[in-house]
């Protein structure tokens, strides 16, 4: 095996990076891959909470890098899926405890044993971002359909291109169909039009996502959730499958086009 390293980033905070990492990692593992995720948000860790592994942390990323434990000891095995592991962030240190070359070395060490390494990047464009980007083979940019989040995503995509890690792939998170229909939210078309990168997922707004995060059960396990289905689709696309966007995901684009058609006819 030779793992592919995916870095999930956004620039702006609070758009759902950690939730995406938890769901994509769990989704890939559900699909039979061997997956390890790394919380790159040193000092503000929460991937462990979202995955429900908080009370099993003994060692963390900084312990591995500073040689206080072996890599194996810091990997927490998920309780539900056989092949899902987490390397948690240190809570009592800051981003400077890890360097970009540490991350490259760490990932290279794990590559032979895994199919996927998923890195949760902290918000911002400083050291934490450099750390998370250094080992990446593939970059997923998460954004919300909000002008400020899209602006920051644009900045991040530019930085990813500058580091020759691109082209990044886009996940549009928390799309509210009702608001899109009322014309109160940017449509997926608007966002893709500005950012001009390939879309790999549209995640609908869904209360179950928050419920899942609070309970430590990623929504991707929930067969009935629309967001869960959207995350499973992202995983399938990462595995190279050609999955059409869900009916509900395709709706805004279709409506947009129909709307324009009607407006055109009325003019």
């Amino acid at each position: 095996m030779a793992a592919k390293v995916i870095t999930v980033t956004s620039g702006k905070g609070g758009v759902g990076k950690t939730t995406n990492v938890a769901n994509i990692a769990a989704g890939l593992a559900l699909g039979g891959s061997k997956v390890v995720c790394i919380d790159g948000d040193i000092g503000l860790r929460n991937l462990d909470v979202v995955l429900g592994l908080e009370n099993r942390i003994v060692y963390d990323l900084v312990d591995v890098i500073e040689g206080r434990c072996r890599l194996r000891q810091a990997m927490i095995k998920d309780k539900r899926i056989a092949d899902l592991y987490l390397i948690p962030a240190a809570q009592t240190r800051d981003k400077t405890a890890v360097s970009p070359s540490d991350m490259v070395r760490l990932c290279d060490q794990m590559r032979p044993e895994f199919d996927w390494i998923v890195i949760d990047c902290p918000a911002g464009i400083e050291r934490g971002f450099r750390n998370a980007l250094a080992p990446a083979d593939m970059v997923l940019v998460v954004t919300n359909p909000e002008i400020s989040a899209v602006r920051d995503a644009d900045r991040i995509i530019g930085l990813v291109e500058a580091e020759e890690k691109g082209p990044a792939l886009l996940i549009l998170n928390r799309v509210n169909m009702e608001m899109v229909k009322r014309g109160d939210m940017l449509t997926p078309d608007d966002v893709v039009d500005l950012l001009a990168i390939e879309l790999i997922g549209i995640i609908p707004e869904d209360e179950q996502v928050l419920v899942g995060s609070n309970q430590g059960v990623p929504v991707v396990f929930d067969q009935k959730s629309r967001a869960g289905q959207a995350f499973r689709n992202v995983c399938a696309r990462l595995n190279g499958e050609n999955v059409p966007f869900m009916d509900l995901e395709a709706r805004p684009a279709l409506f947009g086009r129909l709307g324009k058609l009607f407006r055109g006819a009325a003019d």
Partner: protein
Amino acid sequence: MMMDTMQQVSVEIKGVQNALLVTFGEGDWLLAEASLLQRVDAQNAFFKGARLVVDVAERDLKAADMGKFRDLLSERGVSLWGVLTTSVTTQETARRLGLATQLPGSKSVRRLSERRSTESQEQVEALLIRKTLRSGMKIEHSGHVTVIGDVNPGAEVVAGGDVVVWGRLRGSVSAGVETNPNAIVCAMEMEPTHLRIADTIANVPARRRGEKRGPEVASIFKNEVIFRIWKK
């Protein structure tokens, strides 16, 4: 040991306005880099917290090289602020990584445009950029600038001459910086957040999102920036 037999590249360091300017002697980049890092490690107290401007002369550096160099310095508490070079490749890399390509406080763009406004238009060098400029990117050039791609909100173009955008202009643009009121700005879709020609700031009309007006040209007419729809 390898290190003892390894060829050294001479490293010269001097202070320039709030930064340290590093110049190298002959030798390839990896050796130059190693020699500088060795120096930084040996005199860590001196270098810690410093901003470096590195003159790499004609060496060609790709993003991977320069990114690694920046990271190696930052691990030692030193920040890479700028790269001086005569190589086009290296200059492009530095620009893309958001590093300065001239010394801090340098006014070379303005000086050049002053000098050039007296020269004939044909002699002004143009810069062609074949990609979309994203938020946070800044292009500064003393001559004309052509962008084949979009200029997104948050991106900035500063030119001594004209600016032509073969795409959507939604960011900030300054043409004919300071001294050339004859400069123009053209775009396939003109929706700048900020537009300036010489020292005149445009009053950009607020437009309905999705309104298509087609290609437009901005120029100065009676001390005001006006927008005209492009006609053959």
